[in-house]
């Protein structure tokens, strides 16, 4: 039967009086179908929503298209013969409250649909002569069949308020003139795709820097991910060799270095590699160099240094993570390869690596994403430097540290938001193409 399906259309067409009333007076349908308290709560939420909209919401939404027009400033008061300071519009707040109001409206629409469907569902149950669950039974189900609602309500609210709303807010900034450029820090306006064009345009100053930073970000992520992965795996294999003695001692040495908090060890590295830092002193005292090595002031050298230090940070992690998986590789595969006369290199590239890639693709993607967004290592080691005059991005800046500089140091909020969106787009392309094809994503429950 067509009207059996619980849809909004069916509820409006085939609903009884209560259900139809609930399209306007929300909760009426639920209350009319014997769940009075629940209906009352829904009605209260509707009333609260309309009070909010009348008091603040409509005003917030009405301001959104213009983002405010009144500059704050002095106004001559003819009667009192003095200048009066008048608070003007603050576009940033208008935008924020506008975005929040949009979310409230969306939530209200969702509530409207849900209560309508629920009312129709109850109506059908009564028509069929089924018993409508009472309040006590509903509450009990929140700790049994519907436990996930109880458990996930707060975390979801947290994610909505402190992750999704901020993200949407930040994304909208990309389409405005909110920036220190042109003094648009208090009053700003919608700007369409102008900032995106600026970033993508290779000939402009910002565009040139963007492509430069993007190239280095990808080179960095590839080196950081795969070098760590392969070298970490080799280290794990060397330690796990049958003939290696003191296995746990070696493991302990390497694990100790990641037990130290990363920001501490990165700051220590930064200090040690300064022109008069410990490494240069050591090399000088050994008579290997006369002039200090400019680890942080030469662009190429800084890049290499960062990748090498990242090896120091990352290899033990990989070693720790792959040790267990390495031992799962069937021994007979190796035996067979040895029979056929394969050398260690052939075995590694033909057996170990393909097997590991098969199992750890999600981990590899996660660490690639992590490396593209690796803020700490760049910020604490080189600070993005060396920076050429006239640039906002240094030679070792990743997209994410450039985003930091653009927003916190320069206050180019719109450009920062564009960079963030571009980072997301790039990561999405990379991830979607690989993640969804990986075996561990498809067979999430295969082992159960």
């Amino acid at each position, binding site marked *: 039967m067509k009207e059996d399906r619980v849809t909004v259309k069916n509820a409006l067409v085939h609903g009884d009086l209560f259900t139809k009333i609930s399209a306007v007076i929300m909760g009426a349908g639920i209350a009319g179908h014997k769940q009075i308290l629940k209906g009352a709560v829904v009605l209260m939420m509707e009333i609260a929503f309309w009070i909010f909209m009348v008091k603040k919401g409509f005003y917030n939404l009405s301001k959104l298209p213009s983002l405010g027009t009144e500059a704050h400033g002095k106004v001559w008061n003819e009667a009192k013969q003095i200048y009066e300071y008048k608070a003007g519009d603050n576009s940033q707040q208008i935008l*924020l409250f506008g975005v929040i109001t949009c979310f409230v409206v969306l939530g209200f629409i969702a509530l409207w649909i849900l209560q309508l469907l629920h009312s129709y569902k109850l109506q059908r149950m009564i028509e069929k002569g089924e018993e409508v669950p009472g309040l006590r039974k509903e509450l*009990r189900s929140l*700790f*049994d069949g519907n*436990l996930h609602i*109880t*458990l996930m309500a*707060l*975390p979801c609210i*947290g*994610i909505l*308020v*402190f*992750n999704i*709303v*901020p*993200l949407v807010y*930040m994304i909208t900034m990309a389409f405005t003139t909110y920036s220190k450029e042109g003094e648009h820090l208090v009053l700003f306006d919608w700007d369409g795709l102008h900032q995106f064009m600026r970033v993508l345009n290779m000939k402009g100053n910002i565009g040139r820097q963007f492509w430069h930073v993007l190239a280095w970000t990808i080179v960095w992520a590839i080196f950081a991910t795969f070098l760590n992965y392969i070298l970490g795996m080799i280290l794990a294999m*060397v330690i796990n*060799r049958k003939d*290696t*003695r003191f296995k746990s001692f*070696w493991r302990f*040495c*390497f*694990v*100790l*270095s990641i*037990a*130290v*908090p*990363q*920001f*501490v060890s990165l*700051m*220590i*590295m*930064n200090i040690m590699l300064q022109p*008069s*830092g410990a490494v240069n*002193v*050591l090399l000088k*005292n050994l008579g290997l160099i006369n002039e200090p090595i400019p680890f942080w002031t030469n662009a190429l050298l800084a890049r290499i240094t960062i990748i090498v230090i990242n090896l120091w940070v990352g290899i*033990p992690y990989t070693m*720790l*993570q792959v040790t*267990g998986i390495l031992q799962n590789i069937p021994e007979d595969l190796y035996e067979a390869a040895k029979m056929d006369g394969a050398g260690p290199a052939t075995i590694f590239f033909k057996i170990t690596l393909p097997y590991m890639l098969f*199992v750890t693709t999600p981990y590899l993607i996660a660490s690639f*994403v992590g490396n593209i*967004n690796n*803020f*700490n290592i760049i910020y604490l080691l080189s600070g993005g430097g060396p920076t050429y005059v006239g640039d906002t991005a240094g030679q070792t800046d990743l997209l*994410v540290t450039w*985003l930091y500089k653009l*927003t916190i140091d320069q206050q180019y*909020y719109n450009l920062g938001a564009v960079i*963030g969106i571009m*980072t997301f787009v790039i990561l999405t392309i990379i*991830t979607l193409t690989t993640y969804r094809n990986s075996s561990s994503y498809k067979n999430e429950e295969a*082992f159960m």
Partner: protein
Amino acid sequence: MEKKSKDNNRSPRRRIVNLLVHVILAVLAVIWLLPIVWIILTSFRAEPGAYTKTFLPKSYTINNYVKLLTDRNVLNFPRMFMNTLIIAICSCCISTSFVLSVSYSLSRMRFKMRKPYMNMAMILGLFPGFMTMIAQYFILKAMGLTEGSSIRLGLIIVYSACTGLGFQISKGFFDTIPRAIDEAAIIDGATQWQIFTRITMPLSKPIVIYTIMTSFIAPWVDFIFAKVLCRANADQFTVAIGLWNMLQKEYIYQWYTCFAAGAVLISLPIAILFLYLQRFYVEGMSGAVKG
């Protein structure tokens, strides 16, 4: 087999390879441990200043630690420590309950929004965390949580509000607990809540401990969120910002050796926790594979 491998050990080529491997491992171990040894020695260095002419200190003292823990005028380390401790305890409680709730629901329950939620978590994870943070700052500012001691509350929220997205490792662990246990309990009349609290949690001690510890450590090692939220409010600084400040131009000469002392003091408990936790970490990573 046994005899063959013994023969291999005796063959000279095998011996040379073995020796080489151990020498390389030793060299690598030295490289990996050198910075740690160096910072510990520096924390006891008696000569003042940031940079010295020698790699190793000439004379040793314990004064750096004393100054760090008693000098409350310029950089108030004990206060930073208390700030961080309060934040860490609160956000640890919230994050742990969030992470465990979400991962249990996703692992054990089947509901309509399950896959959409997991996809959403993956998509949100692709945005640079920093991008969210700037907007989070504006929202906290609108809520009035960016001034004075409410910064602490703001930091707790920032550290714990979105932890529902980091369910992967504990979900992987829950997935390995046989479903037959749940089914037996359901036959005995247990509700899902009872299964969660009385069966799954006691069976998942390693991952519970792991979750508690990692969320406790997070505020100690985060640097950038705290810096953006605290700005110049020195009395709200966390340990990480304090240590970072000690290396800035205006402080480095006076505070460099104290920085080393602070780094050692902070790293020590975290390192011990980490060494204790690493087996859970490994289990979490390979748990799904072992089954």
